[in-house]
């Protein structure tokens, strides 16, 4: 009897340990899981944010002018997702970073830069059909969409970083499907270097410090010379004292009037061109950011300072001409309006010459060749 009682006492600690050990392990696992998951998710979100920003900033320009270009031929009318070069770059970089960090085991990137562009092209075609004198394609002068498209696509990039990281008891912490952690970021491409020029009508004469720049190539049906043609002439004034881009009223316009002008042009466009108007508002957002004073309280950059900064970094600059033409040409009267909205844009290289002078030169032959024109902002 005694022996059996003695035997019964043996194993008490084992029972205690058997009860407490699982509890200890469970709570230890809970703490470990919490720390690991939070750390993993943080890494994933950082990877997704960085990837989206990098991809958006590297999205190539879409050139509507080359309506048969590879980019546009990939577009579907419904605006289906198009894989763009930006994603190829970011996937390569991110996959490497993901493997290094050990958290993200997969990274997916999708760009929908021009879901918008299909609608825009359709609207333009409709607009051409609605306006008179279609044979002259007046819209090509009213709104030079091919040159302006870099600013009017809504280039968003979505990057999702995922991991199969699955610590013990993860199910207690996260209601989402077990075995998979994901973080998503969406970034939008934005202009880094852009300046605004006013509309110069064909019958205007540009004079600065006694230098007269003639505008040539006036043809019937043209309200204003395309910016691409006249920029070379106007840029001759860059190195003339008092005629620099920011000091020359023919080349530069102050921030507020410039932004207001974009609003005015957007409002003046015919209904058929609503996508273009929307695009101008997008451009306005970018320009407003460019010309707002920085958060450190210093003064906002002038247009010339933006050009100088671009030149220092060997980057290009978008020059946008926007406004209402006051031309009283035959075509404007035929269109039934005396003030025709004009929007045009070209990408130009900003260069620092050997003597330190900064200048802008003729427009790039293709916006696809632009360098350093963009930055990116997270939008979600």
């Amino acid at each position, binding site marked *: 009897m005694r022996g059996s009682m003695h035997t019964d006492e043996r194993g008490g600690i084992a029972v*205690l340990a058997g009860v407490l050990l699982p509890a200890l392990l469970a*709570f230890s696992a809970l*703490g470990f899981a*919490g*720390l690991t998951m939070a750390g993993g998710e*943080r890494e994933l979100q950082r990877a997704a944010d960085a990837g989206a920003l990098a991809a958006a900033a590297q999205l190539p320009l879409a050139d509507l002018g080359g309506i048969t270009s590879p980019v546009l031929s990939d577009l579907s009318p419904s605006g289906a997702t198009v894989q763009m070069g930006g994603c190829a770059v970011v996937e390569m970089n991110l996959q490497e970073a993901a493997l290094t960090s050990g958290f993200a085991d997969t990274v997916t990137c999708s760009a929908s830069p021009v879901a918008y562009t299909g609608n825009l092209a359709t609207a333009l075609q409709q607009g051409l059909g609605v306006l008179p004198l279609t044979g002259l394609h007046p819209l090509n002068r009213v709104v030079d969409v091919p040159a302006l498209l870099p600013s009017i696509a809504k280039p968003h990039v979505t990057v999702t970083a995922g991991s199969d990281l699955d610590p013990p008891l993860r199910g207690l912490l996260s209601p989402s499907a077990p075995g998979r952690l994901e973080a998503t970021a969406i970034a*939008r491409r934005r202009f880094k270097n852009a300046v605004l020029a006013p509309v110069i009508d064909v019958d205007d004469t540009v004079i600065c410090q006694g230098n007269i720049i003639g505008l040539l190539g006036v043809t019937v049906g043209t309200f204003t010379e395309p910016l691409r043609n006249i920029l070379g002439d106007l840029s001759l004034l860059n190195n003339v004292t008092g005629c620099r881009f920011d000091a020359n009223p023919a080349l530069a316009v102050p921030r507020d009037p410039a932004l207001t002008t974009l609003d005015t042009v957007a409002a003046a466009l015919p209904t058929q061109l609503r996508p273009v108007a929307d695009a101008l508002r997008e451009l306005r957002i970018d320009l407003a950011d460019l010309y707002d004073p920085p*958060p450190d309280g210093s003064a906002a950059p002038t247009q010339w300072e933006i050009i100088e900064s671009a030149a220092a970094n060997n980057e290009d600059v978008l020059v946008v001409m926007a406004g209402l033409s006051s031309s009283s040409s035959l075509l404007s009267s035929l269109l039934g309006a005396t003030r025709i909205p004009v929007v045009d844009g070209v990408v130009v290289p900003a260069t620092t010459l050997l003597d330190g002078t900064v200048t802008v030169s003729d427009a790039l032959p293709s916006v696809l060749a632009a360098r350093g024109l963009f930055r990116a*902002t997270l939008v979600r």
Partner: protein
Amino acid sequence: MSRERGGAAVEFALALPIVLGIVGMVVTGALAFTMNALLLRGAEHATRVAAVPTDLATRTYATDAQVAQAAADGAILFIPTAVQRVCSPSPCRGGGRVGVTVSYVWTNPAAGLLSAMTGGGFGGSYTFTTTTRRVVE
């Protein structure tokens, strides 16, 4: 042999408070680590929400209520006691910095046990606070 009877019970009685104390500390530590990790998660969620514009066109940013909700979503298991957003410069704007401080007062479920075991030196409530910052988009 009779003097040995009940020895295990005595040992058990002596060991139990120590074992329970250890268990309490492990439980407390695990919960504290988890709380802290989740609070950090909440703070980072909230900071990201605060830094990304809800409307790029108008440069509108999340309201205080939206930031607090993001902190709660991020913390998963609890709702932070306080969430404070500070922008520099104020109000928030692109290129500036935003910091979100998230606090949570946590009452340790093993507080009574630990307090008894440690003579009141360990247990009770803890206030977890964490701050994260990032550049405003």
